[in-house]
């Protein structure tokens, strides 16, 4: 029984929702019908672009040489260094806390404090797969505006952190 619950737990909401819809339609419960209309619209929206998006993301993942870019991290400084960390961050996927171990790796490899924080900033909000979904839902204009405003602010935060932490023995701890 416990095993059974474990398998079905992720689908609990889905299941309840389907049961709710069936009951609504059978008994003619109007709010249920309205909710299903709203749900159907967003589902259709999703089905039309999400598969295409994941084809793009998957191909992207196999063709773009992340390791090659990683090799240059820390060696380059100035604008080129910033461009490399931003590019590397944009190629990632996942939540921000997944970036902390990478920040450790960057620090270990001798990347500057500035570039480490620029990496975290770009990782949190400029990842390409996320931008793809953002464009689909909120439009090119919104995405472009948000991205273009965010980038200089991340870079400013990078400089600010470096200025603040200079000579203060900044270190990142490794956590296993």
């Amino acid at each position, binding site marked *: 029984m416990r095993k059974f619950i474990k398998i079905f737990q*992720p*689908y609990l*909401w*889905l299941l309840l*929702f389907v049961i709710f819809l069936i009951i609504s339609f059978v008994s003619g419960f109007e*709010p249920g019908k309205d*909710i299903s209309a*709203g*749900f159907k619209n*967003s589902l259709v*929206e*999703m089905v*039309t*672009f*999400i*598969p*295409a*998006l*994941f*084809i*793009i*993301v*998957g*191909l*992207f993942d*196999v*063709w773009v040489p992340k390791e090659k870019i990683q090799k240059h991290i820390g060696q380059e400084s100035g604008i080129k260094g910033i461009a490399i960390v931003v590019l590397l961050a944009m190629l990632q*996927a996942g*939540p*921000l*806390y997944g970036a*902390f*171990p990478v*920040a450790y790796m960057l620090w270990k490899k001798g990347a500057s404090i500035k570039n480490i*924080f620029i990496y*975290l900033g770009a990782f*949190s909000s400029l*990842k390409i*797969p996320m931008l*793809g*979904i953002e*464009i*689909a*839902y*909120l439009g*090119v204009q*919104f995405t472009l*505006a*948000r991205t273009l*405003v*965010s980038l200089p*602010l*991340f870079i400013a*935060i990078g400089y*600010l952190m470096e200025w*603040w932490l200079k000579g203060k023995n*900044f*270190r*990142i701890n490794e*956590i296993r």
Partner: protein
Amino acid sequence: MSTSSIVYIIVSVALLLISFFFNRQKTWLGLKKGWTMFRNILVPFLNILIMVSVILYLVPPSIISQYLGPDSGVYGLTVAAVIGSVTLIPAFISYPIAAGLIGQGASYTVVATFMTTLMMVGVVTLPLEIRFFGKRVAIMRNTLNFIAAIIIGLVVGLAL
């Protein structure tokens, strides 16, 4: 079907053909990776669509535009920034929520601030961040990003 869906389908098919022409094995690997990622987000994504459609039904647009609309001012901005900071919602799931909010009358400033704090400020993950960076640095990073998120929201709102 929206224009962006059509663009995505055309781009994905074109890339698929080019990729297939150059390297069949890599193309299969890419498709497999894409499929795995898709499968991983499918159920959470459907759950959020359910939640959004139920909440948008229960909360009338007039309430959303009153508290999160263009005239909500400092109040709307604060609500967006605080909720975005303390909740831990994966970014891809936040897009349908954001689109729903805009559709119901929320302002671009509020939505951009909410999304940015969601992505860059993490109160829930702060203990983890402290273990990596130490207390002072982690708190400073979150504070600076919180301020940046509000600036981003305001500028995006002005630009659109």
